[in-house]
C-alpha cells in the first residue's frame, strides 16, 4: 500500500455529461474524468505541497462552465463548451481542497472532486460526499433551473460517487489499514445539504475543517460537514475489525429508500 493512497495529479481532465446509475436510479451526471472515456467517478487526486500544477480541462458539456477551486483568491476559470482550457493549479500548502464548477448546473449535476495536498506521510483516503434527486438532475440537465423553495428530496447518497454496498469496492474510500497504524481521511461535502458521519469503533482527530475551524484538534466519533466543507481527519487504528462509517442523518443510509445503502463505507482494520 502506497503512502498516499490516492490517484496522481492528472495532466488533463475531461468534463463529461452522461448517465450515471446510483443505487438503482439512472440520472444525468457531470463528471471530471481522467480520460476521454466516460467514468461515472469524479477524479480526485494528490498533489505535492507548494508546487503549482498545470492542468488542461476539456469541457465536454453542451454549455459553458467555470472551473472553481475552494482556495482563497482563486478566480473561476472559464471553460467554454467543447473546448480545452489550460490553467494552473496554484502552489498549495498541505491540506485538502475541492474543485468543481461554480454554476448551479455544474453543482447539481455533480462535477466535483478533491485535491489532497501534502499529508503524504500516511495512507490518505478520501470521501467525496454527494446527494442526488434524479428528477432535479434530469430537469437541470435539460436546461431547467432549481426553483427557489422547491422541496429537495434526495433519493441517493454517495461516497466517491458510489452508494453502499458499492463503496466496499472503492480503493480510495474503503479504508483498509493494519492495526497499530494510522491514516488520513479527507472528507468533502459537495452535495446540496449538510451531512454528518459517525465512525464506529474509533474516534478521529480533526486536522482541518474548512467551515468549522474551531474544531481543529477535536477528537470526535461523529463529524458534521456543512455544504462545501472540506475536512481532514486522522485515524489511529488501535483495534482490529470491520467498522462502519455512515451518515447519522439516517435517511442518507438508503438507496431509493431501501436500507442499508447510501452513505456507508467501512474501516477494515486488519490484525
Amino acid at each position, binding site marked *: 500500500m502506497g503512502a498516499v493512497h490516492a490517484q496522481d495529479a492528472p495532466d488533463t481532465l475531461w468534463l463529461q455529461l452522461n448517465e450515471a446509475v446510483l443505487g438503482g436510479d439512472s440520472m444525468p451526471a457531470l463528471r471530471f474524468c481522467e480520460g476521454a472515456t466516460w467514468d461515472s467517478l469524479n477524479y480526485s487526486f494528490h498533489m505535492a505541497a507548494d508546487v503549482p500544477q498545470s492542468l488542461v480541462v476539456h469541457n465536454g458539456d453542451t454549455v459553458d462552465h467555470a472551473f472553481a477551486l475552494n482556495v482563497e483568491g482563486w478566480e473561476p476559470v472559464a471553460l467554454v463548451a467543447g473546448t480545452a482550457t489550460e490553467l494552473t493549479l496554484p502552489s498549495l500548502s498541505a491540506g485538502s481542497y475541492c474543485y468543481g464548477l461554480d454554476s448551479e448546473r455544474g453543482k447539481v449535476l455533480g462535477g466535483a472532486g478533491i485535491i489532497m495536498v501534502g499529508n503524504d506521510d500516511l495512507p490518505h483516503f478520501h470521501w467525496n460526499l454527494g446527494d442526488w434527486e434524479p428528477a432535479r438532475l434530469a430537469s437541470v440537465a435539460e436546461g431547467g433551473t432549481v426553483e427557489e423553495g422547491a422541496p429537495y428530496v434526495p433519493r441517493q447518497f454517495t461516497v466517491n460517487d458510489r452508494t453502499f454496498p458499492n463503496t466496499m469496492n472503492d480503493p480510495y474510500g474503503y479504508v483498509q489499514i493494519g492495526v497499530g497504524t494510522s491514516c488520513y481521511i479527507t472528507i468533502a461535502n459537495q452535495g446540496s445539504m449538510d451531512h454528518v458521519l459517525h465512525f464506529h*469503533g474509533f474516534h478521529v482527530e480533526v486536522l482541518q475543517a474548512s467551515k468549522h475551524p474551531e474544531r481543529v484538534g*477535536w477528537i*470526535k*466519533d*461523529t463529524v458534521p460537514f456543512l455544504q462545501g466543507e472540506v475536512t481532514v481527519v486522522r485515524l489511529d487504528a488501535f483495534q482490529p*475489525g470491520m467498522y462502519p462509517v455512515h451518515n447519522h442523518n439516517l435517511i442518507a443510509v438508503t438507496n431509493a429508500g431501501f436500507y442499508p445503502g447510501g452513505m456507508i463505507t467501512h474501516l477494515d482494520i486488519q490484525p
Partner: protein
Amino acid sequence: MKTMLHSPVRMSRLRKGWSSLCLLTLSVLAACLPSGLRGQALPPQLFSEMDGIHFLDDGSSVPIWGYGWVTDGYITLPGPLLTYNEGQSVDLYFTNPSPESHTIHLHGLDVDQANDGVPATSFLVPLNGEAVYSFVADQAGTFLYHCHVTTTLHLTMGMYGMILVKRPDQTLFEGGPSYTDDVPLLFSDLEVATNLDPVGSFPFHDIRPDVFMINGKQGSQLEAEDQRVWAAPGDTLALRLGSMAYSRVRCHFPPELHAVCHMSDGRALPEPFAVDSLDIFPGERFTVLVAPEEGFEGSVSCDYWNMIDPGIEDTQEIHFGALPSSLDDLGDFDTMLGVGYPNPANSWYAPAVGAAGPDSGFQGEVVVTDLQGRECFRGRLEQGRLDVSDWPEGTYVARCGNRAPTRFMVFH
C-alpha cells in the same frame, strides 16, 4: 432530578434540614431494608419491545418501539439512561421478546467489532434471543445507544437512549472541572405518520420529522416541574447534550447561564469555550457546564433545523428554575424528589408529585424492587420519602399503588 434536589450539595442541605423531623421515619425505614439489598448479584437487563405508546404534548399518542428494563416491564422514549463509572468493565444484558430482531449499538464507546451492535459485522438478537454486550467504559463522557437493525426506521420509532460514564470525583474528565450534577438532555424527533404505520413508511429516504423532543417531551410537557432544570445558587450543572434526531439542533444559551463547552463525543476539547449557541448534529454529543445566576428563571431555546431544506422546523425549550439557598424557602419543592429522567437520587427517593399538585405526595403503600425483582422495601412513606442513603448504587423500581411503576437510580 432533574438536577436539582439530587445534587450532593442539595441533598446534604435537605438531610440537615430534615434530620430532626424525619428521625423516626428514617429509623423505621432503615429497619425495613432487607439484607438482600446489600448486593445486586444479578445484572440488570434491558429488553426491547415494539408495542409501546408515547404521549405527545397535544394529548395524542403514537406507537413506539424501544428499550426498557426487564423488571419494569415497559419501554420508554428515550430508553433508560445507562450510567457507568469510568474504567468500569460492563456486561450489558439484553433480551428481545419482540417479533423482530434488534441490537444495541454503543454509540461512541469505541467497543470492539463483536460488541458493536451492527448486524452485518456483529450479531442480531432475534425473537426471544438474549445477548451480553461487553466493554470497558474507559472514557468519561456522554454517549448514546440505539438499535442498528434497519436503523433508519428503528431509530425514528424510538429505539435509543443515553449513556453517561462518570468519574467518582465529580469531575468531567481527568484534570477537568468539577460540577454539581448531571443533566442528561437527549434531543430526538419522529414523524407521526411513520410511527403510526412503520411498514407503510417505506421508502425511508423521505422520512421528515414533525415531532421534536427533549428527553421524549415537547412543548408544555417540558414546562412541568419535573422536567425543569433546577439550580441552587452556586450550582454548576453539566448539561449532557446528545442528539438522536434527524434534525440539526441549535441550542441558544442565555448569558445568565455562563455556559462553557468542555467536551464533545466523550472527549475533552483542547480548549473549553464560552458558548452562546451550539449546533448539535445527529449523533453528536456535547457537555456544557452552566452556572446559572442566582434566581435565573429562563430557558435554553433549541431550534430543530431541517437537514435537507434548511429552515427551522420547531423550537423546544429547556426550562430552568431557581431553587432557594435556604431550606426554609423550599416550599412545595420538598415533595418533588425522584421525578424526571433519569431520576437519580443519592439520599432520598420520593414518588412523583401527584395530579392534585405538589402537596399530593403519595400516601399509599410503596413497593420497591431491584432490577432482579427482589423486594427492597414495602410500606408507607410517612413523610413522602424513602431514605436510600445507604442503599447500594443501582437502579430500582418503585410501585405506588395503581400508578405506573417508576424507575429511580441511586448514586453516592
